[in-house]
């Protein structure tokens, strides 16, 4: 009630409406063109790439269907991102808990290391990872990509999850231990369920990030038949004379899972992102 009355939460002024309208166009138009171009035929795209009035065509989608790699690529993407999400969140939950509750030096040191790791450019880690995964005979395999992606996103995941543990009062553990529950039982039976909101947030974020990851995929996977969709998109564009309609169709198909996650978890994404950045 108080909020509605306040000066700052007032309805938008005409000028701010113009500004918001500009934002909507700036972020909406590219998406509209992505979708529109995927339904054009190649001649039309070539003659007038900026046009919006056209006869719909499924040429682009037919083309990617003919290549026959789409189903496999979608499966590879799913294996990589679901595998990465499970592994990252599975390791991340106990880590966030242990770090938060141990306080003191371990917390400071742990957070410092995680922040540092998060800052290393991916192009720097792929060079030695190539060697390490090679030594373990994991080059060219999807588990190799899952391990690399997990190492990439684990620091971020722990940083996102930690504030969700910090928000739980310590009295929970005290009460549980009075009831005779050990540390592990308390964690598994009480803490993890209470963290479900944070876990859902972290899982959606990691899924999105690993679905879009392509540098590790193109470097670790030697055979393009094992490429995920993101890697396939990254390779299509470098070839001269790109079939834009086909590429856009591939991009639309490759963005559908993101759309689903977005629809389910929009609020979580918005809050999780700012939380992980700051806390």
């Amino acid at each position, binding site marked *: 009630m108080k*909020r509605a009355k306040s000066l700052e939460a007032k309805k938008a002024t005409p000028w701010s409406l113009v500004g918001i309208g500009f934002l909507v166009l700036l972020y909406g138009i590219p998406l509209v063109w992505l979708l529109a171009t995927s339904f054009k035929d190649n001649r039309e795209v070539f003659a007038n790439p900026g046009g919006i009035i056209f006869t719909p065509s499924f040429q682009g989608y037919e083309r990617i269907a003919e290549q026959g790699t789409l189903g496999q690529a979608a499966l590879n993407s799913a294996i990589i991102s679901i595998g990465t999400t499970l592994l990252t969140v599975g390791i991340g939950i106990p880590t966030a808990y242990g770090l938060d509750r141990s306080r003191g030096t*371990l917390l400071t040191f742990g957070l410092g290391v995680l922040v540092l790791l998060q800052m290393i450019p991916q192009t720097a880690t792929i060079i030695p990872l190539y*060697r390490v995964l090679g030594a373990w005979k994991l080059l060219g395999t999807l588990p190799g990509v899952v391990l690399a992606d997990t190492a990439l996103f684990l620091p971020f995941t722990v940083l996102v999850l930690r504030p969700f543990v910090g928000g739980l009062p310590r009295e929970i553990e005290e009460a549980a231990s009075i009831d005779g529950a050990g*540390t592990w039982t308390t964690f598994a039976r009480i803490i993890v369920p209470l963290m479900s909101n944070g876990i859902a947030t972290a899982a959606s974020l990691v899924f999105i990030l690993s679905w*879009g990851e392509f540098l590790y995929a193109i470097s670790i996977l030697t055979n393009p038949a094992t490429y995920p969709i993101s890697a396939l998109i990254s390779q299509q564009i470098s070839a001269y004379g790109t079939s834009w309609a086909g590429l856009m169709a591939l991009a639309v198909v490759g963005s559908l899972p993101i759309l689903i996650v*977005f629809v389910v978890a929009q609020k979580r994404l918005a809050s999780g992102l700012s939380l992980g*950045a700051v806390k």
Partner: protein
Amino acid sequence: MKEVNARGLAMKKPRRTRRASYWLFVVPATVFLLLLALYPFLSLIWMSLSDVSAVNIVRGGWPFVGVKNFELIFHMSDALLALQNTLIFVAIVVSVGMLGGLGAATLLQAKGRLSAVGLGLMVFTWAMPPVVLGSLWKFLLLPNGLINDLLVHLHLMAKGPLWLVQGHLVLLTVALVNSWAVVPFSALVYRAALVDIPLELLDAASVDGASKFQRFVRVKLPLLMPITLILTVLTVVYAFRSFDFIYVMTYGGPGVASTTLPFLSYRLSFVNYKYALGATVAVFTILIVFVLAFVYVRATKRTEET
């Protein structure tokens, strides 16, 4: 309150043993990161001091060459250009990304359907795979693509520029597209911080006769300083690491016009198979990033204390 304290005292002994076991929860991540982050990291440093080629990269047993690779890098014109490009790129992405984010966050505070649509579109854009966004912008920026069509139709230009072909324009173009992609993130962070500003404070200022602009500059901006500091470092690091958009949109070209340090280290290693030189550029990049990390940790500490 008192009861809890008393209980805490009485339980001192078991509590201490329980506290001691918390580190066990960190073991899986520690082992994992030792194997797949720390070991590769040390291996990278070792590589930058050795002679590593396609022949011995996986097999190991690299001959030690000291700082020879660093000497080679410092005399390589591509590396100096890449450093220069990186600094320009980072400067553009950080300034446009941060100002754009603050502007968008301020606008999106307004209630209403249009505002919700704008916020939704931005969050969705953030979530889209970078390869998709990069490919999409490459398409929109074609010589006869949508952007140039708009410029011509709005009579802003007789003929649109060759965004991704003209040498001096390419880096700017990719940096702007990358800024567009990072604005949703900084807008979300700023928006969360703006929501946290007590409304009483702003109302008090307006009762004292402060205009909207004065309230923004005198009340909001100072309160946003800590978050701005953190966000700046995060954006600098993001821009420094940026690789996806360059790879998809220009592949570092034309020539080396849009090659940044991360892209150079990738190209040297995985295109030219000069792994040692690629590793050396990577180590050099990490050194710069770690200095930034130091600033970040200091900044977070300061905000946690306040």
